[in-house]
């Protein structure tokens, strides 16, 4: 397509239409955001809604700025990021390894299945008090919580990916005399790459849930701490500001994983 400079008029029109459509979508997206923010600001300033409870956009921006200058927002962000990323990496790494082990041994899979089912349905937050007693009330407990919330989903997603390997392809490799390890290396792992990427995406979300939940329970620092603290002292500006920062960080981390996905696809082709 790129090589051919002589595009027909219809084709040009087609491309133009698609570009226009994308443009419209973006304009409307941003309009909705601006409209909601504007409405919020207006209602709060005219006193239709109580700004003490709802805060409002410009106030939030000022609060974020003040937090940066006075209250070490960067420090809180770093703490939360550290807990989230570490929790994410441990959950993904350990989850992948356990899923591999479960793929390898059908017997282990059968034995452990009910345990995984129970752990999956258990609301991990219920283990909060136990975690505090075991790990204390620092970052360790929060990372533990993030891992606990993320790992089960990571295991289940990855194991399903491994088990979905085409039986005929396994048969083909066996007919070549492949060992189980070779089947794993040449087929199961490369074949489950798309599952791995979707597992990463799910795990990013899980890690954030885990770290913020953890910070709600125990902590003296972090964005989750700021949110809880703000709620307790009724500083809704602080709650909103921390939530906005959290939104931005979580989106960035997801975007990073999405970029990794593009990179892998590009590398493959």
């Amino acid at each position, binding site marked *: 397509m790129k090589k051919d400079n002589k595009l027909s008029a219809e084709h040009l029109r087609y491309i133009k239409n698609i570009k226009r459509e994308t443009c419209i979508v973006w304009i409307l997206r941003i309009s909705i955001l601006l409209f909601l923010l504007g409405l919020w600001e207006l209602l709060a300033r005219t006193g239709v809604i109580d700004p003490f409870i709802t805060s409002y956009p410009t106030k939030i921006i000022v609060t974020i700025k003040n937090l940066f200058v006075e209250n070490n927002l960067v420090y809180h962000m770093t703490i939360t990021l550290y807990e989230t990323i570490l929790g994410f990496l441990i959950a993904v790494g350990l989850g992948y390894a356990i899923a591999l082990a479960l793929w390898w041994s059908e017997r282990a899979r059968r034995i452990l299945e009910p345990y995984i089912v129970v752990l999956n349905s258990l609301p991990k937050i219920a283990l909060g008090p136990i975690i505090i007693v075991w790990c204390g009330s620092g970052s360790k407990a929060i990372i533990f919580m993030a891992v606990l919330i993320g790992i089960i989903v990571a295991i289940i997603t990855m194991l399903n990916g491994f088990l979905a390997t085409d039986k005929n392809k396994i048969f083909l490799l*066996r*007919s*070549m*005399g492949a060992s189980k390890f070779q089947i794993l290396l*040449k087929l199961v792992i*490369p074949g489950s790459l798309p599952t791995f990427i979707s597992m990463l995406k799910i795990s990013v979300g899980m890690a954030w849930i885990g770290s913020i939940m953890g910070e709600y329970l125990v902590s003296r620092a972090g964005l989750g701490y700021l949110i809880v603290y703000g709620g307790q002292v009724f500083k809704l500006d602080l709650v909103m500001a921390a939530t906005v920062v959290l939104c931005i960080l979580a989106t960035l981390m997801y975007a990073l994983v999405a970029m990794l996905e593009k990179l892998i696809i590009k590398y493959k082709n």
Partner: protein
Amino acid sequence: MKKLLELKNISMKYQTLTDEITAIDNLSLECGEGEFLSIIGPSGCGKTTVLSIIAGLIQPTSGEVLIEGKPMGKNSEELGYMLQKDQLFPWRTIEKNIFLPLEIKKINDLAHKNYALSLLKKYGLYEFRKNYPDQLSGGMRQRAALIRTLASSPKLLLLDEPFSALDYQTRLSVCDDVYGIIKAESKTAVLVTHDISEAISMSDIIVVLSDRPSKVKSVHKPIISGNSPLRKRESPDFSIWFEKIWKELNG
């Protein structure tokens, strides 16, 4: 002619919790070097099981498989298996796909790789070696799958309905193509199929199996003029053989 493959009194029973199923009952057959043998039978009669037993992937309940008169080891270097779909790995290039058996058998040295590449060259896929399977047509993919099977220089090819996933037009030409390559490389092949015309047009020997438990119903050696499956399909003898085997399968 030297016997390349012999099956002696093969029986196979499957166990389930509620039942014991005899899939194959006392099956014997033999195939000489360079011959093309087809196993044909009603669907579900255990044709694929026979191939798996020959490949050593399933142990028969009794009986033995001999290759060149010797009992075969579990993972024989001697054979290449071709399945219904091409089963090319989509994340590997054509070249990397045909190197796969070399990697598995740990013989991926330069000499073996060059041999595999020479096959690609000979059969017109060399310029596509850096392409991915989904960039090739169904017929080309099937040819690539055959070259992958040939890459490790097996003595015996096992073909499990290798054309059944293709549409009719492609199927006829791929059938011709594969037959030509197998004969050009003078390989011995065992084909499993439920397609009577495919069996007649390709084979030196046709083994007709009965419904389960499979036994050998009859063995034919059709002699039909024509040097390719397509030519053979045009021969008047072809329809005579077709009718004969069709009656046997349905009788």
